[in-house]
């Protein structure tokens, strides 16, 4: 039940993109095609899960015992940055097509607030433990994926629409995101 609440909370109610405002940049940037957004979601899922695991352990077993929780930000981001770069280099070799598709965006994951944000939020879970933190990370990335993929499919559709000149590009994307977020308000109070 607890896990169900985390899942529903992270995916629908407090969707990291639509209501927490984390990971907006890739949300707006990598969402012009459904196929790339699926790839990006995969990458985020992967990085977010590993990053949260590592940072949670780091926090629990190193920072807190040593009284260094003020180093949280810097250590977390260092871990994430190194991790992303590692993934990037590996991907280039292991799966060039995926790299082609995500190439430019992988570095974006480093500067993706969602990864760091979730790592930090995971520390604050009620009765937290490692498993819960990791599950939270997975749920959050599922929420990210949901928002991203739906958004990408809408953008693909809008490519065929006659958007007024002034609205094209940034404004219309923001507007769609806003209305999406408005619709998701309906889930308020579920958890």
């Amino acid at each position, binding site marked *: 039940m607890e896990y169900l609440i985390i899942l529903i909370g992270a995916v629908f109610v407090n969707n990291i993109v639509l209501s927490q405002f984390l990971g907006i940049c890739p949300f707006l940037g990598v969402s012009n095609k459904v196929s790339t957004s699926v790839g990006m979601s995969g990458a985020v899922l992967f990085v977010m899960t590993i990053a949260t695991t590592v940072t949670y352990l780091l926090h629990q077993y190193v920072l807190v015992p040593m009284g260094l929780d003020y180093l949280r930000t810097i250590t977390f981001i260092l871990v994430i940055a190194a991790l992303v770069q590692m993934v990037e280099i590996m991907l280039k070799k292991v799966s060039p097509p995926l790299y082609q598709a995500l190439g430019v965006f992988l570095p974006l994951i480093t500067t993706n607030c969602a990864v760091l944000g979730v790592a930090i939020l995971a520390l604050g879970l009620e009765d937290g433990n490692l498993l819960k933190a990791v599950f939270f990370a997975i749920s959050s990335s599922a929420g990210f994926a949901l928002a991203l993929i739906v958004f990408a499919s809408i953008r693909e559709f809008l490519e065929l629409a006659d958007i007024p000149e002034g*609205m094209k590009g940034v404004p219309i994307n923001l507007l769609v995101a806003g209305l999406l977020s408005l619709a998701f308000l309906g889930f308020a109070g579920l958890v």
Partner: protein
Amino acid sequence: MSDQPIIVSASPHVHSDRTSKKLMYDVVIALVPAFLVSLYVFGFNALIVTTAAVISCLLFEYLIQKYLMKTEVTIGDGSALITGILLAFNLPAGIPVWMVVVGSLVAIGVAKLSFGGIGYNIFNPALVGRVFLLVSFPVQMTLWPTAVENNTSIVDAVTGATTLGLIKEGVQFGETISSLSASIPSAQEMFLGITSGSLGEMSALALILGGVFLIARKVISWHIPVTVLASIAVMTGVFWWIDPEHYANPLIHVLSGGAILGAFYMATDLVTSPVTKKGMVIFALGIGVITVVIRLFGSYPEGISFAILIMNAFVPLINSYFKPRRFGSRIKAKIM
């Protein structure tokens, strides 16, 4: 031979006499019975809110298209008219007129014209307008004048809760359905429309009448309304069967709130629903399920507006996964 030059065009050279304008006006006609019921129930208020919504929707469409977008003005096509009527139908009767105007601006300006006008919007304009108001002005949007028979004055609008609101509050406070049953209107009352709620969601009978007209005229197909209502009934039915003291029976759920209005007139909006029948069923199923989830577990007593908006967002995805079967795509041709 006519004096004008002869026309050359590609085939086909004939066209059916159905036009989008006719479709739209059919919807307007279908909404008339429900409007009459709301006039009967809410009197002058219903007239004011509806007129305000319709006029401001048309006006905003005209002004924005003419002066901001500088494109062809399409207020004649009937879609803004429908948006106005349906927006009004989703508002409580006593709402201040300026809020109606704001809702119309959001519906037409933000949800429709920002996307390029009719046909390009992702979200149902009237519902965007309605939800915008609901979230912005929760107080006025949940102030329900109760039905007073032949009430034609604005002043003595008594506020009462909607059926769903009563149930939600009551259950939250540990009451049981049976203890609440005294204050819940009977199914018959709901069917005929003597209860409280938004303008247009009064009488299930009037709404269904219009809906059947639309289906008969082939403006909408039965798939969406039937699936939405069936999935609401089945899902609430299951909960009711498990615990009838905490969950209201499916009849109440189907007849109350905007379920019927939404299922027949708003979920079916051609622009914001899938194009294939398969897609429509999935779409409608989603609406039904989300509606019930919000009604039973969310903080809003009524969820169909949100459910429709949420599923609107999924329409492009549904359209790209539920395509019609291509002729000749069977892998192996069979020869005897």
